[in-house]
């Protein structure tokens, strides 16, 4: 009827079909046919998943998941893959889906994705667990801009470490930390930050992970004289900017403190803008 519309900017709400579900280590990697979502994706944008089937749904808050990869597959122009760490009822339900299952998905979401540097400066990308998911597409983009990419990946153990092999393909250096020492350096990810920043001479640090890691990244970047861009994984009850349920205390450009919505004004924020001490962390965040 009408010609192919120019790529609309906004997110869409679709009933996605699971094309593949694969268990890798502790995570479930889901590939979804979600028309309109992948086409609009930028590194750092995410999708919101509704838990359960419509009409039988009793869990109403939405669960956010980073868009890990977007690629053409079968007849689908832009499938979307997610990395799901099954830690609670919502993520376990999602991780349990298999080929042919349907799931309501909204995306791509987020008012601010990762901003890319104009110059080909060295960059460090820091991720922990499944939250490392958005960093791989980001690394590709940065490499296209001739930025030397250094990856720092952390996890509780090897099973919770995301694609270290793939990481070696796209990054100049890869540093790995696990809490139990099953792979890489034994200890918390944050402990390796100063060293990685110094060795790489990074001008920008990108990070995705739990709040304490992001706080450490913001601090280390500041000490090192680099910019930081942190992707916040705070709870997002609606994830679409409608409920004001995801407050993040920040300092505005004007130096005045205000509260923004993580899902709508984030999820990527400048690390030096977040008032970390006022940001409440969900009880068992990790």
């Amino acid at each position, binding site marked *: *009827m009408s010609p192919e*519309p120019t790529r*609309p900017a*906004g*997110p*869409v*709400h*679709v*009933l*996605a*079909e699971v094309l593949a579900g694969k268990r890798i280590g502790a995570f479930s990697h889901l590939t979804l*046919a*979600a*028309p*309109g979502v992948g086409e609009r994706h930028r590194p750092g944008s995410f999708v919101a998943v*509704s838990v359960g089937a*419509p*009409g039988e*749904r*009793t*869990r*109403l*808050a*939405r669960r956010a998941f980073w868009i890990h990869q977007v690629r053409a597959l079968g007849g689908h122009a832009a499938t979307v893959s997610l990395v799901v760490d099954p830690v609670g009822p919502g993520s376990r339900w999602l991780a349990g889906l298999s080929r042919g299952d*349907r799931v*309501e998905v*909204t995306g791509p979401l987020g008012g601010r994705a990762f901003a890319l540097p104009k110059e080909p400066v060295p960059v460090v990308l820091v991720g922990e667990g499944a939250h490392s998911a958005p960093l791989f597409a980001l690394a590709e983009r940065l490499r296209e801009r001739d930025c030397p990419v250094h990856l720092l990946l952390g996890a509780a153990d090897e099973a919770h470490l995301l694609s270290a092999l793939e990481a070696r393909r796209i990054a100049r250096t890869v540093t790995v930390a696990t809490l139990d020492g099953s792979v890489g350096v034994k200890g918390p990810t944050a402990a390796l930050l100063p060293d990685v920043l110094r060795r790489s001479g990074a001008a920008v640090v990108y990070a995705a992970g739990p709040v304490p890691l992001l706080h450490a990244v913001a601090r280390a970047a500041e000490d090192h004289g680099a910019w930081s861009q942190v992707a916040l994984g*705070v*709870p997002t*009850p*609606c994830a*679409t*900017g*409608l*409920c*004001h*349920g*995801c*407050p993040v205390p920040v300092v505005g450009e004007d130096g005045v403190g*205000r*509260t923004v919505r993580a899902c*709508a004004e984030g999820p990527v924020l400048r690390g030096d803008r977040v008032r970390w001490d006022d940001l*409440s962390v*969900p009880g068992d965040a990790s």
Partner: protein
Amino acid sequence: MTGPVRLAGLTLASPVLVASGCGGTGRELAGYAPLSTYGAFVTRTITLTARPGGPAPRVLESPAGLLHATGLPNPGLTAFCATELPALVQAGARVVVSVAGESVAEVAEVVSGLARTSGVSAVELALSLPDAEVAGVRTPREPFATTRLVEAAVAQLPPGVPLLAKIWPDPVRAPEHARAAVEGGAAAVVVGGAQPAAFPDGRHAGLSGPAVAPLALRAVAEVVKSLDLAGLRADVVGCGGIATVADARAHLDAGAVAVAVGSALLTDPTAAARIAEGLAVPERPAPEKPAPEHAAPEHVAPEQAEHPAPEHRTQEDPA
């Protein structure tokens, strides 16, 4: 079949309203369907001065419900009128501004500010905020206090800008508050907002979603009956747990002229547009199986994903 409806003297394109606090600033919702799809967009509650909102967590799940205590984050009357309101009007929304205040005088001041601003179709007085104490605004427990607040607000409004009173959803006490509001000059009552509840840590919160739907339906029926018996003329807007076309129809059948869809939007941002679309289609005889919208993935089917605009929908509708 439900086309345009009359509510409080206004003609609305659809009986489906976006409930207060569940449509963001409007900009976020506009990405899924034009705001002109809805009968009206009710803003989150606006206060005289800016409020940052309460501490996290602000919204938590409970079985088939959402608990919320946002602390009324809003930019304050002046900034709202300067930025968000014109944007809503420009986006095609019929705007109903929800207001609350710390005192009767403050409520009157907010309403008088809105009365001087163009683009306000109606004012909704939030008389039933379950987290009012945290937010530091007054919500009346006794009917005489409801009447006083409504009178103070109505006195500020020019003719043609009606006042909607959003009263406590308690099915037992809603009728007396509804009568009190109408006696105070409210042209409509919004029945069935969030139920007073508590977070696990005891903080005051409101409970919304399908968990409260049966309470809301009862409250609407009681209010309709009671206004009728008292010979009071006012429209009723049903609200509370409406997530499907069947839910909305149940409220209309109970005597509401319109419905407000709230937390359903937080799980599916197309919910209200989908319900508006469903209501616009002639009612078919009751199906034997569960109502189609329960099972109906076609509303969010991939093929339709690119066409959230109602023009597309109307073209696709079998007339």
